[in-house]
């Protein structure tokens, strides 16, 4: 079971770069690493996904070391609107035939608070 561990909370200021690290020591060979953002009273929203090395899109970067036992979500120049809970998800539904929903547990996430 690919469980994940993240800091419960983080604080930063507008304009700063924020890095949130997730540990997933039991990640399986075929597992991807996906990050979601959740605002109050809304469902989680996909931010970025990767398998190894570095992935960048218009909102974030994801750094994954060679051993893939951790990953770091990097948010450049954060603003007040980036205040949210961020979840790291590692796992997959293997196959319907008894494979189970291994690892589809979001954990408690990281509550990021951005101050002016």
């Amino acid at each position, binding site marked *: 079971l690919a469980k994940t561990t993240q800091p419960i909370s983080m604080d930063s200021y507008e304009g700063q770069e924020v890095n949130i690290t997730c540990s997933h020591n039991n990640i399986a060979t075929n597992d991807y690493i*996906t990050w979601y953002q959740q605002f109050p009273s809304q469902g989680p929203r996909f931010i970025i*996904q990767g398998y190894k090395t570095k992935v960048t899109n218009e909102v974030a970067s994801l750094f994954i070391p060679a051993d893939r036992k951790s990953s770091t979500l990097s948010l450049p120049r954060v603003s007040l609107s980036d205040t949210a809970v961020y979840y790291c998800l590692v796992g997959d539904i293997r196959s319907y035939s008894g494979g189970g929903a291994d690892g589809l*547990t979001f954990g408690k996430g990281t509550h990021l608070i951005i101050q002016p």
Partner: protein
Amino acid sequence: NAGVTQTPKFRVLKTGQSMTLLCAQDMNHEYMYWYRQDPGMGLRLIHYSVGEGTTAKGEVPDGYNVSRLKKQNFLLGLESAAPSQTSVYFCASSQPGTGKQPQHFGDGTRLSIL
């Protein structure tokens, strides 16, 4: 483009009552999921479906039943509601390959059991 729509958005039940939560998606996704989120907790998977007519148990399935009679709809049923089922329920959908395909979430149903 609606995405994932959950009905109702809010509901208050008495212990022992039954109800059904409806999830509808318009993205032609094969996979659908039901999660619950309790205060200070992450999302926990209740049941999921990998296609029309199929369902499977997740991490916390007890007290819930599901049905996927149509590809676009995933129903979550509470046969005899209990206070421990007070929670926010989220539905999601994705293309096959859950680990590789991002899940798209609805905005939740807030359910209180008195």
